[in-house]
């Protein structure tokens, strides 16, 4: 798998780390209570087939966090954006 980094060009997957689904958003107002909104954000995932947005980190490159749209059924990379 190769990811076209907007800063560095296409690089092998070994330079990147996937960490989490980019389809979830951190609750805006924070808050001190462990609400359902929080557990959903940290733990619950759709995890369906087809394209999804993911956070990848160019750890062995420019240290950019990337929002990668990737088809998890085929590994095809459809789009790479900065967050």
């Amino acid at each position, binding site marked *: *798998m*190769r990811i076209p980094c907007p800063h560095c060009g*296409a690089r*092998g*997957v070994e330079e990147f*780390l996937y*960490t989490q689904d980019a389809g979830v958003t*951190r*609750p805006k*107002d*924070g*808050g*001190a*209570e*462990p*609400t359902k909104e*929080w*557990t959903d954000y*940290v733990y619950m995932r759709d995890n369906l087939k087809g394209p999804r947005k993911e*956070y990848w*980190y160019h*750890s062995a490159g420019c*240290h*950019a*966090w990337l929002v990668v749209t990737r088809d998890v059924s*085929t*590994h*095809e*990379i459809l789009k790479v954006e*900065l*967050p």
Partner: protein
Amino acid sequence: MSGFRIASGGLIDRAKPVSFTFDGKHYQGYAGDTLASALLANGVKLVGRSFKYHRPRGILSAGSEEPNALVELRTGAYREPNTRATMAEIFNGLEASSQNRGFSLKYDPLAVNNLLSPFFAAGFYYKTFMWPAKLWEKFYEPMIRRAAGLGRNAGVPDPDTYEKTTEFCDVLVIGGGADGLCAAREAAASGGRVLVCDENAALETPDLPANVKFMPRTTVFAVYDGGTYAALERLTDHLPVSDAPRQRLTKIVAERSILATGALERPMVFGHNDKPGSMLAGAVAIYITRYGVAPGRNAVLFINNDDAASLIPLLVSAKVQISGVVDSRPKSSDLVHDLAREAGVPVFAGAVITRALGCQSVKGAEIRLNNGGVLKLECDLIASSGGFNPNVALTSHFDGKPVWDDAISAFIPGNLPPGMEVIGKAAGQGINLNIQPCWHVGAYPGKSFVDFQNDVTVKDIRLAHQEGFSSVEHVKRYTTLGMATDQGKTANVNALALLAEATGKTVPETGTTRFRPPYTPVAIGALAGPHKGKFFKPTRCAPTHEFSEAQGAVFVETGMWLRAQYYPRAGEDWLAAAQREVNTVRNHVGICDVTTLGKIDIQGPDAAKFLECVYTNSWTNLAVGRVRYGLMLREDGMVMDDGTTARLGKQHFVMTTTTANAAKVMQHLEFCSQVLWPELDVTFISVTDQWAQIAVAGPDSRATLEKLVDAPFDIGNEAFPYMGCAELTICGGTPARLFRISFSGELAYEIAVPARYGNALAAKLMEAGAEFGIAPYGTEALGIMRIEKGHAAGPELNGQTTAHDLGLHKLLSKKKDFIGRALAARPALTDPARPTLVGLRPVDGVSIIRAGSHLLPVGAAATAENDQGHVSSAARSPSLGSIALALLANGPARIGEQIRVYDPVRNGDTLAEIVNPVHYDPSGSRLHA
């Protein structure tokens, strides 16, 4: 003709004789020969014994699909089992031997398995060996293991070296045959970079344009995502032992690829079709044309298509007698009839070979004629062709399922990996002319082999179906068909057809043939490349490494880092050295490299606000010139890391992390900045490697450092108090950063200079502290002192602990949002019964408490129900004896009680008193001295 070598012809170099041994006997071949061709030239037909039944086996093919002729090459540490004789190039002095046999290849006592084979039908082992249960490991399994397996691994370290590289190209052509070379020339015409990989040695160098790189002896063995291909280049396998790398793993990144891997012939399935002397017709042709070897003197052809017809004149030219052409097609074809007539050879149309005759090799063929009559022909070679399978292996490494083409009775490529195109025979073009399949010859009661290497017969496939294993995947797994080193290249399609017949379905309804990477087996050493032994991972040395070496340090691996563990003096073991170092710090002054802790330089107008987000405690109120301890949580509320952060300027902070988490924290900060709070104007960079940082600790640390600090900077207690920081110069102008922080609990500083001055700074400090008895100290002493002080470190920051667990809940700000705040408040994480940090001391004052011990109530039975926590860290303090930190249920409420410290895996069982985790100077007065 000498032996079976034809007088002339072939691509071998007859001017260069090569001598080699097989099973200890000397033979001669020529440069360009494979072991297989050279053995055939010498009339050696028996090359190995089969996997299960130990039947005699010879050479079936002339390529990497070979299932039978597997040998051990070379000797000693270089021994390489399961090597295809058809792919091994000979060289002077090559030693090869047969494998999976008893005392000798010719007389193998395990051949008795062949007679007992009715008891060893497919899957028999699932039905027996169950009683008594204990005998499986002791008796049955060792017996099975000894009988199974093929060759012998040397059992000692592989002495060879391997390389890795990456190639980029516009077009990758896989297969250097006529089709591949033609495609390469065409692709090169448009100017791009073209690679051609061919798995064989090039006996003729092809003439190619300059922008084409031709790589012989290179097998493209796998296709990966993003146009990435893995190839193995055999660099010195064809040479005697050499210092050069043996093989090179090349990662090829190609815009597009052209698969020109041709087609693999499938053998006819008839009785005893595995006997030495039974070969693929196409292989016989290759031995004649490429190697100038006639694999027999008297041949019978057994075919169902027109491809093999061209073998007739070839055999004639090689002076091989042909006793007959057995063509299973009712009428054969004009082509076959014409060529046979020219050669004066009888054609038996509509006939089949029911079985090969002979004991250890083919001596004849029994033929069932189209009128039902039986005929026996003498021969020493049966050349069979059951048609060709396009070599689709690489097309199925992705999701592509090969699809059945009725016109040629073979699978052709289905969905292709992105960017791949298939040409020529690999695409099913120009093969299997006029084929009429003959999947097996019918009623012969003996063994007809489908998968030669795993000894799978027609009967096994039928039995699997009878027992309900009718899915092609079930048949494979139940009979082991296609699971051998050749992945069933010659077997799978015949097996599918047999299964289709058993189930009454068509081949495409039955299933398809799939292959997994690698195409041919690849040495694990080649995939590892140079990353072994000391080079398994990079080694990071601290900037005072040479200094520590000169001081006689013993080093310890800490992640990638090598850190000085202790500095033994004459007669000292690790404990004596570490305790002396602790005493030096506690009473005088010591120095320790702390560079390995992560250092992140953070700058920007919103730097303080940013720290508020990532740390649990408050930062906007930290004054310039001051340092604060910070605690970081993960979003799930668990402690992630801790460390001190210094404010060097209004918009300038330097954060330290633990050694283990340096990269993880950096990644986390980047995420917080780029994804969660992009509106904050802050930027940061890791400076771990840029600054050499040394802790100077002990009552005499100030007096030592004063000698280095340039005037007028004042490091006195009032001008530069505990938790102060500053940028300054030392030693007459060297830029430095000074932090008055302490891990040891003594008056202490950490001083940082540009990394290149690390050794020099250490030397200067030693000089300055000489009068106080200064000594360097290592991680052992560091560890003892941090446990004496009750500081949490790696074993406590294990990702399973909360701020409450570590007694750090006061650092959880109630006034702001921070990472981990909400989920840290979940009910189970705030339960006071959670194991919480305490100190332990042995009640008897002499026992040793070890980390990893569990804690049980005194007098309670050693059961899981009574397990109340564990010892996380333990040390042998020179002043306090055995001390420990522990995570104990309701810990802080139980200080003063006793607890049982239970360590059955090391036979430990003692009593401890629960104490404050800060064992040493709990008031902290020494820090402020």
